[in-house]
């Protein structure tokens, strides 16, 4: 009798109509900080909003800017139809770096030096194996995910420009400033066909593993306006694009 009573009460007094469902485009996303000293695995969808980001220390709590996950390792009470897998890797914006960047950091900082932070980022972009499991069953195993599953969004750099001094430590020559990033074209994303339905409360495990060794060490990378060394914060992201299927209200 209990299910019938609950069903009856829900129909009379409930705030959602479970006999009718609504489909809207939506994303499930998770961005995590890359451990600066290097790591052989980065897990996604493990820490919901409000939890700390393991790669960023104990004081940085995740917000809606990093993830829209409200529950550990599942999408909660919604169905999700997965149509695209996107990945992301880049430096976090300057105001959230753990050091003061100065006023000519952008045009001398990332690429002006040998073994620079941008070179390290390029290494990250070329490595990794993405593994995604639903209810502990492997569904996707994709090598070089930043190449195979690019973000499909970004910025359009038409001219980057640069600056330098004659300091011997700066080896760049005319026009060599550059920016490493994955494909920003929307047509390049990894499409899921047929689409994959992820049912409510299904356990999700997703990670980018680096089986050939740890990610590059960003600690004290040669980087900053005075040719000094800093540790830039890098974030990796995993984005599921698709349809949220939820009861009508």
């Amino acid at each position: 009798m209990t299910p019938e009573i609950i069903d009856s009460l829900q129909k009379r007094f409930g705030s959602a109509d479970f006999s009718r469902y609504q489909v809207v485009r939506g994303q499930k996303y998770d961005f995590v900080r890359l451990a600066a000293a290097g790591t052989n695995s980065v897990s996604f969808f493990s820490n919901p909003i409000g939890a700390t980001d393991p790669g960023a220390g104990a004081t940085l709590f995740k917000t809606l800017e990093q993830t829209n996950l409200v529950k550990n390792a599942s999408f909660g009470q919604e169905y999700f139809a997965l149509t695209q897998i996107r990945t992301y890797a880049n430096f976090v914006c300057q105001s959230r770096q753990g050091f003061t960047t100065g006023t000519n950091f952008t045009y001398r900082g990332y690429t002006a030096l040998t073994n620079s932070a941008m070179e390290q980022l390029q290494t990250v972009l070329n490595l990794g194996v993405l593994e995604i499991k639903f209810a502990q069953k492997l569904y996707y195993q994709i090598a070089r995910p930043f190449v195979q599953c690019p973000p499909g969004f970004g910025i359009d750099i038409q001219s980057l420009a640069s600056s330098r001094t004659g300091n011997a430590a700066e080896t760049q020559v005319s026009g060599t400033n550059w920016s490493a990033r994955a494909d920003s074209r929307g047509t390049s994303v990894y499409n899921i066909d047929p689409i994959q339905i992820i049912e409510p409360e299904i356990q999700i495990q997703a990670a980018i593993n680096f089986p050939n060794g740890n990610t590059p060490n960003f600690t004290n990378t040669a980087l900053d306006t005075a040719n000094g060394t800093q540790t830039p914060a890098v974030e990796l992201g995993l984005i599921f694009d698709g349809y949220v299927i939820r009861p009508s209200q």
Partner: protein
Amino acid sequence: MGFQSESIISAASQRFGVIDYTRWQAIRWQWYSYVTYPSAGASTLTFFGQVAGQTGVTLQDTNLPKAGSFGQTHFQLKSISTDIQIANNDVDGFTRANQATLDTRALASDFLGGFVQAGVLNFAVGARPFATILKPFQYAPPPGSPLDYDNSYVNQISAAPVPAAGAADVVGLPWITQTKMRNNVYFVDPNILIEAEQQFTVTLDFPSGAVPVLATNVVNDTTNPLKVGVIFDGLLLRPVQ
């Protein structure tokens, strides 16, 4: 069967009204709303909260007829775009003489390491969320950008770098925009129909902390404000007259 008053209004409308509510017209339409992105950054920016004619708000900023709704028309939402505009980008300041403060001299700095790399756009109808778009200036760019620039070494401000120690050089002009590919637009599929007078909210939030403008020598909140916008593209449904 409706109330008597409704019947009377309907009958009166059909005989004496200026609008025929039995026939509807659909036209492609864009609703847009631009607000100032303050130099100090902000934790939340609200779009579609003001109408043209309010203090400091013109048709360049918004074409919304009523704060928070589309008034007496329905709107079938097909895509969401963001936009960034500034009256004077003033890249002339990107010179060798300003070597020490180059990040502050071109808006490109903000594309590479500023607010363009952050934020989340929240769109709700009533109180129900319908879109949560991460890094919206990248995830939901405009369908095209007229701000094209042909990268050429002709554009170099200075001559080739001087290798001597202490000789500072600046090479080229930075020029960065949002992506301008039609396929990158955030398509709302399936479309969302927003009914007349339905209240909706669109906010750009930075819950991890405000992101100040980097190009502070270009952006000025009073004389050269940085404007960011949200554009809803779709079909406007209105009764035939």
